[in-house]
């Protein structure tokens, strides 16, 4: 598989070995490596130390937009073609809360998905992948130039990789 960037792919069976390897890589100053896990894992996430995902901002903005548009369409449409129903005021807040609530959830949910797709797409890299990583193994891919490969290979192996290969 000819993929750029080239580097070293290590496969681990044990979560503690993998997190140890990640910490060592970070200490050695490596950045931009990719970790594959079959399930989200706290130990691995703590070792990598990513900041909180910005998806939450999408949820908040989507929800606020939904709430605003829920009230906006109900009020605007009620006054655009005024029909008095049941002797109630044209702009009745209590029933419109229901519409605004549902639209808050709808837009909040859809914005969350858009945020998820956007951020994963933006950070996506065509790095080498080992199909065992969706089953029960943990993979670490370190992009590195040829001259630094031996030291990276050594570090990943010492941490307890079951397989280390150049990709």
């Amino acid at each position: 598989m000819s993929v750029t960037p080239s580097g070293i792919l290590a496969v681990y069976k044990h979560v503690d070995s993998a997190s140890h390897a990640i910490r060592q890589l970070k200490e050695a100053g490596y950045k931009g490596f990719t970790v594959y896990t079959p399930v989200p894992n706290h130990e691995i996430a703590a070792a990598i130390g990513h900041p909180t995902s910005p998806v939450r901002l999408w949820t908040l903005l989507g929800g606020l937009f939904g709430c605003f548009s829920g009230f906006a369409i109900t009020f605007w449409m009620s006054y655009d073609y005024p029909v008095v129903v049941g002797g109630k005021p044209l702009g009745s807040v209590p029933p419109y809360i229901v519409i605004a609530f549902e639209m808050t959830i709808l837009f909040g949910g859809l914005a969350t998905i858009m945020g998820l797709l956007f951020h994963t797409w933006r950070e996506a890299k065509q790095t080498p992948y080992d199909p065992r990583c969706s089953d029960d193994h943990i993979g670490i891919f370190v992009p590195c130039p040829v001259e630094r490969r031996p030291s990276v290979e050594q570090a990943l192996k010492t941490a307890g990789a079951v397989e280390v290969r150049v990709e």
Partner: protein
Amino acid sequence: MTTATQPTYSEVTRDVVASMGRPGRGYYILLGFVLFVLAAGGVAFLYQIRYGLGMAGYQPPVMWAVYITDFVFWVGIAHCGTLISAILYLFRSAWRTAVYRTAEAMTVFAVMTAGLFPVIHLGRLWYAYWLFPYPNQRQLWPNFKSPLLWDVFAISTYFTVSTVFLIVGLVPDVAAVRDKVTGFRGKIYKLFALNWRGTDSQWRHYTKAYLFLAALATPLVLSVHSVVSWDFAVSIVPGWHTTIFAPYFVAGAIYSGLAMVVTLLVPLRTTLGLERYVHEEHFDNLGKLLLLTGSIVGYAYLVEYFIAWYSGSPYERESFYFRAFGDYWWATWTMIICNAFLSQLLWFPKIRRSIPMMFVLSLFINLGMWFERYVIIVISLSHEYEPFAMDHYTPTWVDWTITAGSFAWFFTWFLLFARNFPTVSLTEVKEIIPMQRKTTAHK
């Protein structure tokens, strides 16, 4: 999953992928049968379109009948899926992982079924799109003060959010299946896996997004059946006009949905060979939830009768007397016995842990909950204020065939889903099993 025989990660993948293998002859016979019933329902529907709603037994004063009963029934079924997938997720309940995918798929298909009924119930169904607010030549907008329009927003939001929630949960599972199967199926799963590779960056955004979707789905599920209950409670029909309706309907919805989950899981676990993942502990927990919600429903029945008496309103009193001892006494007592009394058997752990008993009980609860909606809708409408305006309603063959067709529609989708997608979430089942460690010492 606390049993000693905890499966390993690779066993989970193997077993779940194996459950999606080539199904036996029984599967195709069942699929053929439900498709036949679905076709029969379709024919009855065409007949009704040709000759009008009178074919469904509609005549004043009962202009809401079996279709609205079916609508409320199917929306109710949907609710349990979101309870298990979102509310129990927020509560970090570990046992939900093995059953949530089935429940969530059930939610989506039940909402799809429910969504048919407001349209089937329309006399001129080709105008159904008038329900949505869109700029039009007549310059008219829908009436936002009507609970029927709140329903349009609630149900369409519920359908969208629960479908998205199901798909998001499926992506890592489909990716795991993609890495195991080859050939044409492998290519299809590769397409559906959306390039999921379980990278740290993907999981980082995914876990947050999933959490927020669960947090949004939780108030949504409570709101949807409240809104459905307001279709009734906001009107002034005796038997409908009461403030207890929202919590009463939500509890009843979750109750009926849990029963449907049990009904689906019992055959599913044996036919797909998932006994190791869905076992007595899950049925025990589902039984406890059934007991809780069944007791709330039983309490609501009591309160309804008490308030009918305590209100002093002769119309309310007459309406509730008629429910218990009038033309439809059999429906009322079916509902009370199946929902309020039979659920009390679940106090016994032996019953909760007996899978055949739970299955039989779940069928009775499904029946009882269908009749609950029938009782609320049909009996209340047939016996309102004016004695000269009271009449008896009997469902026709068109009603029954379309109702049977709705079950067939639901099961067709479910059977197709169970054949092609993991009915047990392998990612979430793995999540509650600790990953292998080299050293036994935990951090």
